[in-house]
């Protein structure tokens, strides 16, 4: 087989293959697997798909290609892109999608017979592994293509993909696996993670097309009156509207769902005539609402769509010729990804316009441009050994066909994620699915998988049904459905938001001004707001994304005066000048520490430039250590550049003291003590309990009364396990995951080691500097009080008593 068989397809179109396409076909024909790294819209679909098509043009030979996509919303677009070459090279071959959205009739048909090419998601592929005849149906499989691998990498869904691929490789050792990825800082690791022990003979192909990207920034007209902090940033809205006016179709990205709602209302207020040409898109909107926005973009009927990361991926919106980013880009890869949503055709230019929401974001955009131009982007670190997912997968496999323990262990260890699986962990996992998982704790009368003739099998019909319903790793908070009285659904909000509203309250959701009619049993009924007024903007919980290390460094370099002159730096210069005059500019070669007094007492401001999560951990750590010595309570705030400590007294500005407090000794113990990690780990356990099958998943909209007796909260389960089976490995996983998720522990540890050797600059300031002000002003930051419930309650009661005594 050679590339010659493919060229006629290109010739008929009048196209010339790119060299990366030729290279991919050639590697494929040599039997190799690999990772193709190419920007979107550069013909990478043809690069990976034409090889298997040309190799066996017989359309009737059963399922030959599996195409994995991270987003089911992408499935329809992917099918469109695959069907054309399929018809040309393997006439009569079919391509279908099997995802959670697939209608029951088609699903039933696919259950009987698989098409030539099957587009599916990691969850649906797992589900199909539970069908005993699945391996038979795939007997002609030659290639698995994993689209947008960078999106899956570093997540549990990525590990689920690794495990599924290992299963397929066991069945069909000759299959080739090809991943598609955007730019990453660790492409080799990404390929190793995708291919596991098949990595050795694989290849990495880069489409080095130097896609042209233009990154502009909207410069505020009066920088002196531009805020130093904040994140809403509608101050530039009319300038943004002008930009939208100039372009054909604009994608306007925000960082949060609430910001999407706010900007949508703002643009509508500025340009009422855009009423039908403006749409919004975020993950909590109903599918119909989202499809309206997607179809409008594709068809070119919309002027602008306001969106969150829900539109970051894949979908080809050719009419889009401008992307606007509201607020910090947070990371370089993210900025590039978003920029790539415009200029989707090969050879065209991607353009993104940054809109700062406060002054320092001007520096961020300049810095992001520096890093983006040299493609200095972030890495995505693969997950290691998520045991909750392993036990889920083992049950999935046991349902599909009984497995022998040693063979399965080899298969699991052939993946990157589980290559370091220990004997203890493996024995525990086998125990968890069969007799409870611990030699010490009692699990009488428990059984899920049985050993039969040396093989693990699951044959209880109810267990099988329940497991199929719970396959996957995405767990969401209990959501309240928002709908009109006629049943028209708008989307979902969090219970904590809606429960604060009373019937008659106004709210803003899905781009509409609404009034709450009633809220009952997870359904909030609304109607269009009958009166004008400021409604409550729907808000969702969730962590704010931290600034990436790479972007932080780029910002620090900009503050040191490096980089080509730019409009952003020129605009922000008056503010930087104040910072220089009152203190100095921080950077990441030395640690700037400012000390100031105010009515509230003393403040310390530190600027390690390590992202808000790390700063949150550092602030809590320092506050904990200082107050242990001084006895004073300390209030902390943090942002992406630094953090502050505030106390009535006792915050001395001494290098020796500060170095003592910043020691890496007892780091983990102190963090555990000050961050109330026990409480956090209990919360994190929700996801783990769900993935590992410890709690039951009730299908949405179905209330099965017979299952009521088996309802339990994950936090309660955590306590029971902690009490009677403290060695249960899922507890340790929960503690590990929360430290990484909440504090970026790996990054924090690296930062604290780096701080040890850094020069410190200690500055006593008269006024709050431009860098300090946002930290001082941030009073909304949630703090998690330390101490157990009893201590906290006692403290509250004694405060009340004191207040009463003084009155």
């Amino acid at each position, binding site marked *: 087989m050679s590339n010659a068989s493919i060229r006629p397809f290109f010739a008929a179109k009048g196209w010339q293959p790119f060299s990366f396409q030729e290279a991919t076909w050639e590697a494929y024909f040599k039997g190799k697997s690999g990772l193709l790294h190419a920007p979107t819209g550069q013909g990478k679909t043809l690069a990976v798909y034409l090889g298997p098509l040309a190799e066996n043009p017989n359309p009737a030979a059963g399922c030959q290609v599996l195409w994995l996509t991270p987003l089911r919303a992408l499935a329809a677009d992917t099918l469109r892109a695959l069907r054309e070459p399929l018809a040309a090279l393997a006439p009569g071959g079919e391509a279908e999608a099997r995802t959670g959205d697939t209608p029951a009739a088609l699903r039933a048909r696919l259950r009987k017979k698989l098409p030539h090419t099957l587009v599916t998601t990691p969850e649906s592929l797992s589900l199909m592994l539970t069908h005993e005849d699945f391996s038979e149906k795939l007997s002609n499989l030659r290639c698995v293509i994993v689209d947008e691998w960078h999106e899956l990498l570093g997540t549990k869904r990525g590990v689920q993909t690794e495990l599924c691929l290992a299963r397929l490789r066991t069945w069909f050792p000759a299959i080739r696996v090809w991943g598609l990825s955007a730019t990453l800082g660790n492409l080799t690791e990404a390929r190793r993670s995708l291919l596991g022990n098949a990595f050795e003979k694989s290849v990495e192909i880069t489409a080095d097309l130097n896609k042209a990207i233009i990154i502009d920034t909207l410069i505020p007209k009066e920088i002196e009156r531009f805020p130093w902090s904040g994140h809403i940033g509608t101050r530039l809205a009319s300038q943004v509207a002008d930009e939208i006016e100039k372009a054909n179709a604009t994608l306007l990205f925000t960082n949060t769902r609430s910001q999407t709602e706010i900007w949508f209302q703002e643009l509508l207020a500025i340009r009422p005539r855009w009423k039908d040409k403006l749409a919004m898109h975020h993950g909590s909107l109903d599918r119909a609402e989202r499809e309206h926005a997607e179809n409008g973009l594709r068809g070119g009927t919309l002027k602008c769509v306001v969106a969150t990361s829900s539109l970051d991926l894949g979908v080809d919106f050719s009419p889009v010729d401008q992307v606007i980013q509201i607020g910090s880009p947070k990371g370089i890869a993210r900025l590039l990804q978003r920029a790539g949503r415009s200029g989707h055709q090969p050879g065209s230019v991607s353009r993104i316009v940054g809109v700062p929401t406060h002054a320092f974001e001007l520096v961020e955009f300049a810095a992001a441009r520096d890093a983006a131009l040299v493609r200095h982007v972030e890495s995505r670190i693969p997950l290691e050994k998520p045991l909750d997912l392993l036990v889920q997968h083992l049950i999935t496999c046991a349902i599909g066909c009984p497995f022998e323990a040693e063979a399965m262990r080899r298969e699991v260890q052939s993946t990157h994620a589980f290559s370091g699986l220990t004997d203890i962990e493996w024995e525990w996992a086998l125990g*968890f699915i069969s007799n*409870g*998982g*611990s030699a010490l*704790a*009692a*699990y*009488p*009368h*428990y*059984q*899920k998988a049985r050993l039969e003739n040396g093989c693990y099998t699951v044959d*209880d019909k*109810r*267990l099988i049904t*329940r497991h199929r319903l719970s396959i996957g790793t995405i767990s969401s908070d209990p959501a309240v459905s928002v709908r009109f009285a006629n049943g028209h659904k708008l989307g979902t909000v969090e*219970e904590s938001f809606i*429960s*604060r509203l009373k019937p008659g309250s106004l709210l803003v959701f899905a781009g509409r001004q609404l009034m709450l009619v009633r809220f009952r049993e997870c359904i909030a009924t609304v109607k269009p707001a009958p009166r004008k007024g400021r409604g409550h903007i729907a808000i969702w919980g969730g962590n704010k994304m931290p600034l990436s290390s790479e972007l932080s460094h780029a910002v620090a370099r900009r503050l040191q005066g490096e980089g080509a002159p730019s409009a952003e730096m020129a605009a922000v210069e008056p503010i930087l000048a104040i910072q220089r005059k009152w203190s100095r500019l921080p950077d990441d070669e030395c640690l700037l520490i400012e000390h100031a007094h105010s009515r509230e007492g003393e403040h310390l401001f530190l600027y390690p430039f390590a992202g808000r999560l790390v700063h949150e951990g550092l602030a809590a750590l320092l506050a904990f250590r200082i107050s242990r010595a001084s006895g004073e309570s300390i209030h902390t705030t943090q942002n992406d550049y630094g953090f502050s400590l505030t106390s009535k007294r006792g915050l001395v500005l001494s290098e020796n003291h500060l170095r003592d407090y910043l020691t890496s000794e007892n780091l983990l113990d102190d963090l555990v003590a000050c961050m109330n990690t026990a*409480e956090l780990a209990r919360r994190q356990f929700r996801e783990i309990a769900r993935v590992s*099958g*410890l*709690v*039951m998943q009730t299908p949405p909209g179905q209330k099965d009364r017979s299952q009521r*007796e*088996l*309802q*339990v*909260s994950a*936090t*309660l*389960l955590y*306590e*029971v*396990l902690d*009490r*009677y*089976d403290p060695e*249960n490995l899922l507890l340790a996983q929960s503690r590990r995951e929360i430290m990484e998720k909440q504090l970026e522990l790996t990054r924090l540890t690296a930062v604290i080691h780096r701080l040890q050797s850094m020069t410190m600059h200690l500055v006593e300031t008269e006024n709050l500097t431009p860098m300090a002000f946002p930290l001082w002003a941030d009073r*909304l*930051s*949630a*703090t*998690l*009080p330390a101490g*157990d*419930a*009893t201590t*906290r*309650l*006692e403290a*509250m*009661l004694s405060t*009340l008593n004191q207040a009463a005594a003084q009155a």
Partner: protein
Amino acid sequence: MFPFQLIPSLKLLPEGAAFLTISSTLIVADIHLGKSAAFRAKGLPVPEGDSARDLGRLFDLAEKSKASQLVIAGDLFHCSSGITPELEAALADFMNRLGIPVILVAGNHDAKIPALPAELRSVPHLDMADNFRVVHDPGHANGGCLHISGHWHPVVKIPDGKRTSLRLPCFLFRDNTLVLPAFGSFTGGAVVDVKPRDRVFVALREQVVELPPVLIDQNSPSYGSGSAGRRSSTDT
């Protein structure tokens, strides 16, 4: 301050029980024995330990309070699949050692069990000296006497700091009914919608204290009394 006396002949114990001094009666509610066994029977690996622990705690409490009878205000058991031979044996042993009468006011979970252990005396409700009546469901309270009940697994939410709160199991006193916290350690709780005239009591170390209304979260979602027992959640 210990033990807290709501009215002269009724004490609230920090272990989550009520004690009637005139008849020396210990009253607890919602133990849900065998709950983890019920989970295991359905293929969910929850370790054993809760039932033995709860019977042990109850035994100690009965000894300590010198009770001359024990009343369970409903939901002694979780469901029939949780009543294993081991549990039946443990319960028989418990009653044997205890040596005082045990009366079960049957709760909604108990009612679904085809055959309760023979040695248990089960009644729909129980009238006590000094004008007290024990029922399971606070909704079944009627008449002027003081009712002692369970069923709701009441938990109170106390805002604490910025956007965080404590959730503590509590005694709820509403109208003429006292609702006991769930005694079982593997039972969830439901945040109660505290009404203006309600009184809320929580255990604090070795005491039971009344919560000043100012500490209680008035914005907590209103579930209505009817569904209060349905929301599964926990204390902190």
